[in-house]
Structures are given as C-alpha cells and as structure tokens.
C-alpha cells in the first residue's frame, strides 16, 4: 500500500508540478495515473522511489515514511520500467536484467540464472541473453526492461509510460503480456500513461490528473466511464463525443437474443447476447447503458 499525504512539489525553476496531492494506492492492484503531459504524473511516480522528494507532505509505503529510507536501497527494492527501456547500451541483455542483483552482491551465476528465468517470464527467447540492447527490437527492449524491473522480485513495480515508444501492434502485445504477468505475479503496479485506452485496459484503479496533479476523478474504469465526474473527464475519456459510447441499434432487425451495437458514429461495433432483447443488468433504458471496453476485456482476461 502506497499513500500520498498532502504532497506538493515545487521545482527549482518555480513550477509547481504537484499541488497538495493525496492518494491511496492499494497493494496487489494496478493503479494507473493518467493525464496529458506536464500534469505531474511522472513526478508522482518518481516520488515513490525518491527520485523526486516532495517539497511538502510525505509518502508512506505500508505505513512507513519513505523520507527516512535511504534512496538507493529503496530504489533497489522497487522495480522501475521506463519509456525507451533505459537499458545500459554497453551491457548484454542478461547483465542488464541482472544489474540490481549484481549490485546487491548476488553471485554472478545465481543472478544470471535468475535473469534467464525472467526472460522466460517476459516471453523472451533465452538466445537473446547475449545480445546488446541495440540489437533488439523496440518491443523486445521493453520486455527486457520489464524483466529488469522484476529482477529483485519487488513488491512494487513502477512503470513510466513503458509502452509509449513502440508501435500500436507491439504495444497491444505488451499490454496483454502485462495483464498476464500481473495475474501471475500479483504486484503493486503503479503505471503512468497519457493514453486513456491503455489506462482503462490495464488499471484496476484509474486516476485522472490535471495540471498540478489535481485529481479530476479516480475509481474503477467502469465507474469513470459510467459517471464522469465533470466535463473535463467526460471529454478526456471521450464519452461526451460518443466515441466510447455504444448503443443498441434499434433500427436493426432483432435476431433473436442478439442485439446489434453501434458506436457514436453509427457504425456497427458488434453484437451482444441479450436474452429476450434486454441487456443484462440494464436499467431503465438499454440505450443509455454505456458499455466500456474495459468490461469487454475483463471478460476474456
């Protein structure tokens, strides 16, 4: 459990990146901080491993104030994955993965054996172990990055836009890989992104931020989609523009128990099983029922 207590950060140049921010990040869940660039989300993430110290307020991990913890050992106990992987270009893949264990004095043989296992875990072939990062594709580099983040088997995994720089197909791959990993590993994941789709896909809890790390809304994806707290959120998640809102196509012929769904632009988006032509758990009108991507995905996860 990670807790932010009235945290603010003013940088040396005077910008107030984070303004009185409080949040509880539950253990063994994925919390996604989402917002456009400059909203302070990365600063928040970096406060958790003391890459940034707050100007005021404090951060606790499992009830202990991290301000008293030595930054280096704190960082070593927390996994960190960043955009462009941040791998050391002059070290082989296996040494990159084993960096932190080697730093903490784990014997080389042991560290390497563990690193190879981690390559399996993130779905990389062991034959890549002796390559240099520059010899890998972007997607492979990110997987190595994740493997390195997991190397010390941390309870907390911080991910700073880890999939921001790869192409959409690879990104989708990596996202599903992460969902699978999280199911197996059960870490406390704090994930930063500016991509609301990614946030809804990955987050158990999504926190939508505005400049100064002001929380516009936080909650489960389905809640946010169903009840945007304000116009900003509605606009941000796209529901106001109808982009993400699916409706029953009432003009289509009913085909038994299936209803045809159309998106905001009126294009068919799929069919839904609706015994008797009524959506399960639907309220008064099926037309007003929003169906988020998230519920869809959660179904097959």
């Amino acid at each position: 459990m990670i807790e932010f207590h009235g945290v603010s950060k003013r940088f040396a140049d005077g910008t107030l990146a984070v303004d009185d921010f409080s949040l509880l990040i539950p253990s063994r869940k994925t919390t996604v901080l989402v917002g456009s660039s400059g909203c302070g989300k990365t600063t928040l993430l970096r406060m958790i491993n003391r890459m940034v110290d707050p100007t005021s307020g404090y951060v606790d991990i499992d009830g202990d104030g991290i301000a008293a913890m030595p930054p280096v050992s704190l960082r070593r106990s927390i996994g960190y994955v960043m955009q462009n992987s941040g791998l050391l270009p002059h070290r082989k893949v296996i040494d990159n993965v084993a960096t932190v264990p080697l730093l903490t004095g784990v014997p080389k043989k042991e560290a390497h054996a563990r690193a190879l296992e981690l390559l399996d875990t993130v779905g990389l072939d062991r034959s890549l172990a002796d390559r240099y990062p520059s010899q890998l594709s972007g997607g492979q580099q990110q997987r190595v990055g994740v493997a390195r983040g997991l190397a010390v088997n941390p309870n907390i995994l911080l991910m700073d836009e880890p999939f921001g720089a790869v192409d959409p197909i690879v990104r989708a791959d990596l996202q599903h890989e992460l969902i699978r990993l999280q199911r197996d590993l059960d870490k406390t994941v704090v994930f930063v992104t500016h991509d609301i789709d990614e946030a809804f896909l990955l987050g158990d809890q999504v926190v939508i931020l505005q400049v100064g790390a002001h929380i516009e809304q936080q909650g489960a994806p389905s809640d946010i989609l169903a009840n945007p707290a304000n116009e900003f959120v509605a606009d941000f998640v796209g529901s106001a523009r109808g982009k993400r809102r699916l409706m029953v196509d009432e003009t289509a012929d009913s085909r038994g128990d299936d209803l045809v769904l159309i998106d905001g632009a009126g294009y068919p988006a799929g069919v839904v099983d609706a015994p008797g032509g009524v959506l399960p758990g639907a309220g008064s009108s099926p037309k007003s029922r929003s169906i988020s991507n998230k519920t869809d995905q959660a179904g097959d996860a």
Partner: protein
Amino acid sequence: MLFLEALAFIVDPANLLGEKGILPRLVDHLLYTGLSLGVALLIGIPVGLIIGHTGKGKNLVIALTGSFRALPTFGLLLFIILFTGLGLWPLVFVLAVLAIPPIIAGAYSGLDSVNRETIDSARAIGMTEWQILGKVEIPLALPLILGGIRSATLQIIATATIAGYVGLTGLGRFLIEGLAYHDYTIAFAGAILVAALALAADGLLALVQKLVVPPGVSRGSARTTHRSRWNFRPAVSTGTHITGG
C-alpha cells in the same frame, strides 16, 4: 633529395645511440610526454568527469580551458623559467597546461553525450552516484574521453620539441641543432621522428579506444571517435569570453 637524406640519417646506426643519438632522445621525449600527460590526466579527467556528471561549473571550466588554449606555450615556458631556472618541471607544467583543455573537453563532452534517460534509469533502479559514474557514464563516455586524451597526446608530443630550446633534450634537439647549424637534413630527420612518434602514439591510442569500447556501443562510437579529436568547439567558443573580460 632532402627527405631521403633525412631518412638515411635516421636509419644510420651511428645516429642511434650515444649522447646525441636518436634512442636516448626518443626516451627523453617519451619521458616528457608521459609526465606531462600524467599530470594533465590527474587534473583534467577528474575535473571533466565532475562537471560532466554534475553539470556544475561547466561554463567556468570551459571558459578557463578555452583561454588556456590561446596561451602561447613557448612564451609561458620562458616566463616560468625566468623564475624557476631551467629544469624538467617548468616544461611538464606548460605541456600539462596545453593538454588539459582537450582532456577536460573530452571527458566533459563524453559524459554529456551519454543519454540522460540511461542515467536516469540507472539511478531509478538504485545505482549510487559513484556506480552511475563508474558503471554507466564512464564506459559509455570512453570513446570521447579517449579522443580527448589522444588529441592531448598529439599536442604534447609535437610541442615537447621546445624542450630542446631550454636545456633539456628530446627529439626537439634535432630541430634546434638543425636550426643552429642550418642543417636541413637533421631538422628534417627530427621532424620525421616526431611525426612518426605522434602517429605511433595515435595509432596505439586508437587501438586502445577500439578495445575498450564495449561492442554494444561501438557503432555509435565510430563517429564520435572521429569527432572527438577536434572536439574543442565548446571550449573555444565560450572560452574566450572570459579572457575578453
């Protein structure tokens, strides 16, 4: 032909040993070069690494080293000798002054060239500042650091010839003797010897550069290596402002 006569002088065994032979003078030349380079490295590398790592004091050091570069070595040497008398240390001092700017520039720009994200991620996974410097920044900056050292070495070797003018020896003696006796053959032979020594040292350092650069970054370094020899730009460009003030 002069060049052939000079070559004949060099290969003549009679000119190899003895008080005024090529070998003892070569050894002295290497001694001056080694000492000066050592002093320059002792000062230049830490300074370059510190400003490269912290980014602090950058402008000041760059300005200082830039004005060092405009200092006429010859004048500085004679100036110092008037106070100290003849000796090895005045020479070593001025040659080190000559060599420090490219060494600092190489170390500084080497660290500066390391991707900020790589350093950031190293810090984020829990490396101490020293570990970041030792395990990330220096290995990645090595091509440029060595480039600076290469450049410094060449300058020292060529300039150490002035030792011959101030009571020391070294290969510069052939030039001074050639000048004093108006003997172009000896002067030319001296020029060839110094150039050969410089090229040999340069080749050796190039080889070292190749060997120490990890394969993972060798592709990028091929280009930076070339540039580094001439990488005086920042030092000069801002350097002269201070001397102007």
